[in-house]
């Protein structure tokens, strides 16, 4: 029997939807071992996040209201205290930049080992076995964590968002634990790119452009109409982000975001392995490229060889027509 503690991620005074991937993981482990799971909502808007998470089957939801922006040094001691207060075998968060920042710090505090960015979990003879991508997704490793308490971050594209199961969880507010390091770090700002489009890691369709688009203006005039016609999220290769055509946070790849939509359109992207690492989990991949030998062909389902400046506007109007 293993009880799991899920650390919720908060954004703008509520739960960030990515949290539900870690909830799904916690349900799988709890079911597999006959245990339960609890959630800790920590941050600004913890009460609100707790009410949003109430119908997902948690035995209990802890709330810790923290004023101001996120800094790991303020959060980690509190997460560790809550983790020690129960009989938890696993502490988990989603492998967003938040989870990747916070979880290892919590682990060191708990003298726990970490399995990061896991893609699946199995309970085998009482042991929890994690499967995780390594070498930019070119190998999967199966591992166990041999400490009394384990810390795990969960890859959002591999664990679907948990569904509401009804009922409501009890809540309990917990106090914030202090740490010396917190006095030496100050949150200054979070500058975010606001967009009306779906979030890259959550969209059902992603349209990504590469350096072949040649300019920021072309991203706007050529790619955006297709993105919006499809109701898609816009992504980019590292080369396009580095060239300044789009903001960095649209980058898909090993160093950027990992996406796994139903449909991924790679436009003018040759397909460096670092880019493939971020998108090859997509269900259907379409490549539009001049070079039919480009490495993107190794993962694409459909490949249209052609000049994107001609093909993309044509595709946009074809889809508009099809939609009627």
């Amino acid at each position, binding site marked *: 029997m293993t009880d799991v503690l899920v650390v919720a991620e908060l*954004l703008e005074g509520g739960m960030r939807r990515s949290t539900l991937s870690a909830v799904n993981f916690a349900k799988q482990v709890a079911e597999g071992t006959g245990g339960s799971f609890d959630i800790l909502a920590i941050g600004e808007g913890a009460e609100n996040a707790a009410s949003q998470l109430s119908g997902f089957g948690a035995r209990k939801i802890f709330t810790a209201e923290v004023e101001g922006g996120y*800094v*790991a*040094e303020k959060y980690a001691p509190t997460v560790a205290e809550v983790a020690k207060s129960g009989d938890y075998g696993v502490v988990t968060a989603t492998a*967003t*930049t*938040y989870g*990747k*920042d916070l*979880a*290892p*710090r919590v*682990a*060191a505090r708990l003298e726990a080992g*970490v399995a990061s*960015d896991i893609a699946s979990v199995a309970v085998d003879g009482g042991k929890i*076995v994690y499967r995780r991508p*390594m*070498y*930019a*997704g*070119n*190998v*999967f*490793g*199966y*591992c*166990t964590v*041999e*400490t009394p308490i384990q810390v795990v971050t969960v890859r959002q594209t591999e664990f679907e968002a948990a569904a509401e199961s009804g009922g409501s969880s009890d809540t309990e507010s917990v106090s914030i634990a202090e740490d010396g*390091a917190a006095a*030496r*770090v*100050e*949150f*200054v*700002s*979070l*500058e975010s790119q606001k967009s009306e489009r779906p979030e890259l890691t959550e969209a059902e369709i992603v349209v990504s452009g590469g350096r072949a688009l040649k300019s920021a203006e072309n991203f706007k005039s050529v790619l955006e109409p297709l993105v919006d016609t499809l109701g898609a999220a816009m992504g980019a290769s590292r080369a396009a982000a*580095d060239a300044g055509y789009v903001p*960095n*946070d649209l980058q898909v790849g*090993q160093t950027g975001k990992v996406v796994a939509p*139903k*449909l991924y359109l790679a436009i003018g992207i040759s397909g460096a*392995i670092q880019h493939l690492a971020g998108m090859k989990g997509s*269900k*259907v991949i*379409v*490549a539009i490229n001049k070079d039919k030998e480009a490495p993107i*062909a190794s*993962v694409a*389902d*459909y*490949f*249209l060889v052609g000049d994107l400046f001609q093909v993309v506007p044509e*595709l946009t109007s*074809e*889809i508009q027509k*099809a939609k009627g």
Partner: protein
Amino acid sequence: MKILVPVKRVADPDNANKVKVSPDGQRVTSDGLEWKLNPFDEYAVEAALRINENGASGEKLGEVVVVSLGPDDVQTTLRQPLAMGADRGVQIKATDDQLDSSVVAKALKALVDAEKPDLVLMGKQAVDGDSNTAGQMLAELLGWPMATFAMAIEADASGKTLTVGREVDTGVLTLKVTLPAVVTVDLRIVSPAAVKNGKTPDTHKYNEGARYASLKGIMAAKKKPIDVKSLADLGVTSAPVVKYSKFELPPARSGQVKYVESVQELVTKLRTEAKVL
């Protein structure tokens, strides 16, 4: 400022598509692949050098110490940052199966206690294990503040604080940390104006990317000292806690790529065959 940069050797990531799994699934084989400095660690070396120099004049302002854990061939890995301009190296002798991020964090903590750097600067992750945990664990063991995924670092003129822009999912999160601290770097830390130190004139722009070692630097690196310590010297006796039982290649994608002739054909296929439109 004294900066410690932990670096790891990895199988050349540009050859990562050739990383294979042994037939029994027990290990990842990197036979025939070249060892290379983990690219994120290379960016950390570059960032450390930029913090510790006047970029316009090349004048050195502080010391950069590089450390690597592993068997004797990591000394080759250490020569690269030394050739780029780091001052000296430390090898912590270990076999690869003695190491995981928790052991690495403990060993680095012991080294930090001995060396007392103002800053530990390292890559956000190694591109082999892709774990992204050692820096965070080290910061916690030290009780130091940290800034992960750094894409911009500005050191104040006194060298007491760093303002760090962190590349996060929702944008750029800026933190101000009082040293000593741990900073892990992301790719964009090597863009031309990403690192500022109060000594280099604001107008100075670095070349994109990490610097190449000059021939002079390579010759000089041969004479730079590499101190060798064992895990036992550092008082680290613990074994890895994350244990791998099996490796496998990712499932192959369902089919071969289908070349389509026209936009109409593509749209039709996406609607009727793939059913995603």
